[in-house]
């Protein structure tokens, strides 16, 4: 109980010494370590085999599974689609990241652009509109790197309603494909796979503990050439009914 308090640097060395003694037989230099890492078995699926269209279908299906509302549109129709979503959901006051494209900020809404908004202001907003970095179809996961168009982490945390703009070209099938697409590891990542949930009370799944309870996704079909618009499905698709 009254052992001498080790000076911080002492414990660091103590722990590293213990580790070194424990892993003696396995000690490697930097290039041996890199070689050993490269030699690790990775026989799992890296790339998916679905077509681009099927991939997007799967993403939409997964989003529906956790009751996200999904709307498709052409890239040109994006500002109109955003405005339509805001109007339909009755969201007047929305937060927008500083880097959100200006043309997405339609008239008739009270936009709070985040140039250093106070937490209280974000708390009062009804919703938030952001871009995204990637969608992983296998699990219906939306990935944010919190770039200027995606906003600070608090923006997608406090408001109860999140409208996320995802381009079809940002959708990959498998999680390894997302990691392959990162030229270098991002410093901030938030992955979203449904609204928050708990099963802590009798294993009854309840959605919406903290964070936005409502997720709407606009899927901008930049994978379909404008000449083939004729093949585009009806504009709005609601969440699948249980």
């Amino acid at each position, binding site marked *: 109980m009254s052992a001498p308090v080790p000076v911080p640097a002492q414990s660091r060395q103590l*722990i590293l010494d*213990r580790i070194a003694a424990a892993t003696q037989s396995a000690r490697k230099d930097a290039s041996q*370590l890199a070689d050993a890492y490269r030699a690790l*078995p990775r026989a799992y699926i890296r790339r998916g085999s679905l077509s681009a269209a099927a991939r997007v279908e799967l993403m939409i299906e997964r989003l529906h599974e956790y009751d996200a509302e999904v709307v498709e549109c052409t890239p040109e129709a994006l500002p109109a689609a955003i405005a339509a979503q805001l109007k339909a959901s009755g969201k007047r006051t929305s937060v927008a990241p500083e880097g959100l494209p200006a043309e997405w900020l339609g008239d008739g809404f009270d936009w709070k652009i985040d140039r250093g908004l106070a*937490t209280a202001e974000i708390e009062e907003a009804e919703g938030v509109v952001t871009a995204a970095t990637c969608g992983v179809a296998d699990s219906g996961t939306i990935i944010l790197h919190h770039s200027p168009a995606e906003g*600070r982490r608090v923006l997608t945390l406090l408001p109860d309603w999140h409208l996320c703009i995802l381009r079809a070209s940002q959708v990959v099938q498998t*999680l390894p494909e997302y990691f392959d697409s990162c030229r270098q590891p991002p410093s901030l990542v938030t992955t979203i796979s449904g609204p928050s949930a708990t099963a802590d009370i009798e*294993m009854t799944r*309840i959605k919406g503990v903290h964070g936005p309870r409502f997720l709407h996704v606009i899927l901008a079909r930049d994978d379909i050439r404008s000449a083939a618009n004729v093949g585009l499905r009806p504009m709005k698709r609601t969440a699948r009914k249980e």
Partner: protein
Amino acid sequence: MSHAAYHPVLDPTLAPPFPQAALPVLRNPQLRKNVAHAIDVIQAKRAKLVAEKTDWQELRSAASAIRMHAIENLGAYLEEFEAKCTAAGGAVHWAADAAEARRIILDILRQEDASDVIKIKTMTSAEIQLNPFLQAAGVNVFETDLAEIILQLGEQEPSHIVVPALHINRSQVREIFARRMGLKDLSDDPQVLTAAARTYLRQKFLTIPTAISGANFLIAETGAVGVVESEGNGRMCLTLPRTMITLAGIEKVLPRFQDLEVTLQLLARSATGERMNPYNSIWTGVTPGDGPQSFHVVLLDNGRSSILSRPKQRQTLKCIRCAACMNACPVYRQTGGHAYGSVYPGPIGAILTPQLMQMQHAQSLPFASSLCGACYEVCPVKIDIPEVLLELRSQVVDQERKDLARFFDPMYLGLRIANLLFWRAWFFHASQFFGRIGLSFFTRRDGWIHSLPGVGGKWTQTRDLRGFPKQTFHGWWAARARQSSPASGKEAK
């Protein structure tokens, strides 16, 4: 049995041995029902998703290899993590043991003048008994996971790594919330209860500037920390406060960011039966303008390096805390987590806890298993838990060999004598003969034994035992050989 009457002890230095600790649970139908129900729900979901994931075994192999590689090269990766995290604005501290970790955390809180702290669930903080230490030092600790606030407000201990309050049903939760949150007319609908918790916690998130978390992963390549969650309280705690302290066991390291592509696919499916859990957060040091501007990582040894030093047992450190082993375990299914007397229950707890205690406590835990192997089958990182259990059993026995008390332990004596009897066939045959005679006193007319004294009584508590048949198999064989060729037996040389 009301929850108030039942106070399980989760401190391995104080907890009763497993067979004793299991008794109140075995006699509690409500608890057993809750545990079995929770397990069945998760198992069904998990099974469906594992069947769907055609590269599941390849993912397990990769994860096992990556985690073992990280552990075998732990020093190098920890130093890389420290350098990168520090370069990104984080402060990295090293705690050799629980006491030091507690002191480091309190010192940081004092520096920041923090009298309140919000917390994300972390087993590691329970391992070092952080909460009571901070409370005693005048810091108010607010748990923010729904299960944790149920436990904290209800003054109970967790019983499962992933679903800690699974032993508490909805009406018990309603009672706790009504009493502690001062809410009248609260129904026991889980939706309503969850909404009450959301409101109760919102104020804490928005006003308390200091948070403590654990870490699911430490990424050496970038100095990033990863937290995996479902409820969103983690995001609240690691985004809103000014100061963030992350407590992480040294074994949590992954070499590279890309390694998450393996572990994240395995973790959610194993832990909660989902393809991906709602929120994963990864952050690197301090990001100006976004989130806490003061970030500390406390790296905890507390016995892990000693586990590392034993090659057969080292695999224990591969664990990614998914609790799939618990959900598969037929022993855990009947006893729940409290019987293990540790913050780490179930199969992983049975091997991790005694090792963290340097085999000085929790010696009954390696024996709390029928060695069925279901845990190994489901472990996403392929920890051969039965192999480690056997290794630890032999260490416990080796301790006993030096203890005079062994001469009063019927199991010890019995096994030592049995070994002698197996050494020579005629010892064995003689023991069968005398054994049958001895047991004949207990053998009823139908040839069965209904009750035995001493250790044998542990069998006959609930089971009858066949009396020894008059003729052993070898006796029958010899007799048959004599019949077929009286001169020379048809026996192998």
